[in-house]
């Protein structure tokens, strides 16, 4: 059991990292640890637990801005902004159910560090696109800030982009400022039933290139669709298109979509409440939860070219009996594969190299995550640049060393 450092304020985070630097120690940077099982399995001398840095420090609904200490629970933030009919438009997914961690426990710092998003990614972006400002302590033990509290800002380098998705390997964030946006007044989901992956690809391309202005497009093959109760698809594949906005707009776009998609097959519809439940389940990849039928399978998250998603999925299904869920109009492929000592990494990586994009091994036993690359290996010149960037923040490799790549 390693040491656990539990700072209560930002200055103590600085002190903690200086302590580690002075003693030549490494730190695991964590919020509430819901995503601890993601990344290479590595060992650290102590855990820097940021969950004690908690609380919303600024929320101005009419300015669309919120600041919170990094350890603030996401659920607290979401509940607060909901009171003003607002939301985090990037729809951050909850990794808890996939990884066997308690649901609804993530912190805002973890959401940013993992650059989370959800089905609305194709319309509204990821955490990176809503991350306005930060205060953080680098691996040098120095506090710095970047960005601000306004949405339009090009003053200096956009370090927020770099910290989003850096998995705590550059700096320990202490305070975060994000953009919040109005929540859609209502939503509905148009369904197409029984499509194979190829037809679904075409339908999703047609819908996302239409005036329908869909805020999500997903395809669930039959075996996966049946696990989402709300789909009520009775053993049929489901291709789903979400419409959000004011009621007259949703109604008009529903007509647009139904006319466009009718020729593809049988149409269906989810009203507001079932639509909400359906997309929540897609967001959190509920067909592949740790306690579900595929809970022991290795799970890959693949971001690829939308039109190539079904090619990747078919290859993995044919060669390794993968179960697939497609989000982002085909651009996000969740692939659950039977357990293997290498998590089928060569097969997955080859498919992604061919199609374009990247793949992250989200769930696999620690031994597997110690043996295979969890994040996509980078081309040599990019890997060298990545190392130099890492060194510019954390030259001694104090923060989460080895979590993203071996030797980094």
């Amino acid at each position, binding site marked *: 059991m390693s040491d656990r450092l539990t700072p209560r304020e930002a200055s103590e985070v600085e002190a903690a990292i200086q302590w580690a630097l002075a003693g030549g120690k490494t730190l695991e940077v964590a919020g509430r640890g819901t995503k601890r099982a993601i990344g290479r399995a590595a060992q650290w001398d102590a855990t820097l637990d940021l969950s004690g840095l908690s609380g919303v420090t600024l929320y101005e609904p009419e300015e669309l801005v919120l600041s919170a200490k990094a350890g603030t629970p996401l659920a607290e933030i979401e509940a607060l902004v909901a009171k003003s009919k607002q939301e985090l438009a990037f729809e951050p997914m909850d990794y808890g159910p996939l990884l066997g961690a308690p649901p609804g426990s993530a912190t805002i710092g973890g959401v940013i560090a993992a650059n989370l998003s959800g089905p609305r990614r194709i319309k509204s972006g990821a955490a990176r696109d809503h991350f306005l400002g930060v205060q953080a302590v680098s691996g040098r033990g120095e506090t710095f800030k970047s960005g601000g509290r306004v949405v339009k800002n*090009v003053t200096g380098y956009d370090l927020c982009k770099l910290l989003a998705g850096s998995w705590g390997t550059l700096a320990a964030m202490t305070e975060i400022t994000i953009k919040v946006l109005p929540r859609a007044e209502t939503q509905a989901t148009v369904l197409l039933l029984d499509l194979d992956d190829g037809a679904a690809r075409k339908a999703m391309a047609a819908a996302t290139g239409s*005036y329908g202005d869909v805020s999500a497009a997903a395809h669930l093959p039959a075996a996966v669709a049946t696990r989402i109760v709300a789909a009520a698809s009775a053993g049929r594949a489901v291709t789903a298109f979400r419409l959000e906005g004011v009621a007259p707009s949703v109604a008009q776009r529903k007509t647009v979509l139904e006319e466009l998609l009718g020729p593809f097959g049988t149409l269906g519809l989810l009203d507001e409440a079932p639509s909400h439940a359906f997309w929540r389940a897609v967001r959190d990849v509920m067909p592949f939860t740790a306690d579900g039928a595929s809970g022991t399978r290795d799970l890959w998250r693949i971001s690829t070219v939308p039109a190539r998603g079904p090619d990747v999925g078919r290859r993995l299904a044919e060669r390794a009996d993968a179960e697939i869920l497609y989000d982002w109009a085909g651009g996000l492929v969740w692939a659950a594969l039977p357990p293997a000592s290498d998590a089928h990494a060569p097969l997955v990586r080859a498919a992604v190299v061919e199609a374009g994009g990247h793949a992250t091994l989200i769930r696999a036993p620690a031994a597997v995550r110690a043996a295979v690359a969890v994040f996509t290996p980078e081309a040599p*010149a990019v890997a060298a640049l990545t190392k130099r960037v890492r060194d510019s923040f954390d030259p001694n490799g104090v923060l989460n060393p080895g979590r993203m790549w071996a030797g980094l």
Partner: protein
Amino acid sequence: MPVAMPLPDDAVLRRRAEIVAALKRIVPGEGVIASEQAMRPYESDGLTAYRQLPMVVVLPETTAQVAGVLGYCHREGIKVVPRGAGTSLSGGALPLGDGVLLGMAKFNRIREIDFDNRIAVVEPGVTNLAVSQAVEHAGFYYAPDPSSQIACTIGGNVAENSGGVHCLKYGVTTNNVLGCELVLMTGEVIRLGGKHLDAAGYDLLGIVTGSEGLLGVVTEVTVRILKRPQTARAALLGFPSSEDAGDCVARIIGAGIIPGGMEMMDGPAIKAAEDFVHAGYPLDVEALLIVELDGPKAEVDHLLERVQEIARGCRVATSRVSNSEEERLLFWAGRKAAFPAVGRISPDYYCMDGTIPRAKLPLVLKRMQELSRQYGLRCANVFHAGDGNLHPLILYDANQPGELERAEEFGADILRLCVEVGGVLTGEHGVGVEKRDLMPAMFNEADLDQQQRLKCAFDDKSLLNPGKVFPTLHRCAELGRMHVHAGRVAFPDLPRF
């Protein structure tokens, strides 16, 4: 020129003939320009108060040539300033007397349009507007629309993270770029991102975007294209005070409405614009709002009603909605012509670019009026009200001794004021040389040192566009030094489990 640039290196200047010859071997034909007369068009960008002839201009046509030029300059210790169309308002492309000016204008092809995946792959010298024009036949467009979009290039947009009037709803460049090919100062060519979403590792594309040409030279860009909204209608709302107009903006957003565009003009800007284009703007109001809704017709009509209703609750004095495309464009005509309109009433004007929390607008306008009196210079304001981006236009006459300096001091005071109220120095024009020395108003030494360490990760010899963005140049080795104070740390007192 009040902002000092790095002193030219005599050793480099003495080798000029040899350097020009070497560059001609890398970029054959007419791609190397060394005569003073032919280099003259490159001596400044949109910030015309600053001028400097480069040592030599190079106009490469291929990625290999860019890599060759940068690799050569890296080996030889020669500075390089990249340039797109030269529309920067902050001096980002201001040449260096001992540096190569690397013009990217010949990278002007659209390489691929892929409607299925809603992307376009373009060379950096393609203009912003040309991207939209290339996809408009299928009803698509490229969302960021800086007002210089006829001339400015995508490469420059990436360097500056350019915005436009629609960015509250559709984002700025960084939200609409998926990938790029980038040449590092060493001459290494790397690819970041692609046609897919999000980065495989660190979001290096995100850091390159908005880096003002200090981290690398982009030779190809993959952008997202969007379906053009089915309809757009605008409301023209006049208010007796900027407080009322600001209140209206806050209530529109508070009501959950994110307009496609929301622009505000103050009294002097309204008058200048109306005198120039006769858009039918009311002249008896102190603030004018243009609120544009775009999307499906049912949505636009519905929200426009709500916007008018909100405006009625904010003492609106004039309220009109566009009932035709011609009328909508007429509403915009005055706003879009605001800069040249101000140009008609003053020999020169200086365009500022701060961003503030919207609620601070009345306070900032009031303080600006005080500054205007103090400096004896008039000021007109146009404001991207949706996102808080303020463009004060300071009116001056460069032929009057001391007026340019007064205008610059006035501008600097405005930007310090923006920071003081919780805003930032620049919303979309960039720091460049113009706001370089104001950076300490917003960032402390540790903040700036961390940014410059990142610069060193991309450019270890500080050869790429030096003298921009950062007020002091540090050697990378000096920045990288660590000072660990063992024994001074009181951390063992922290609570643990």
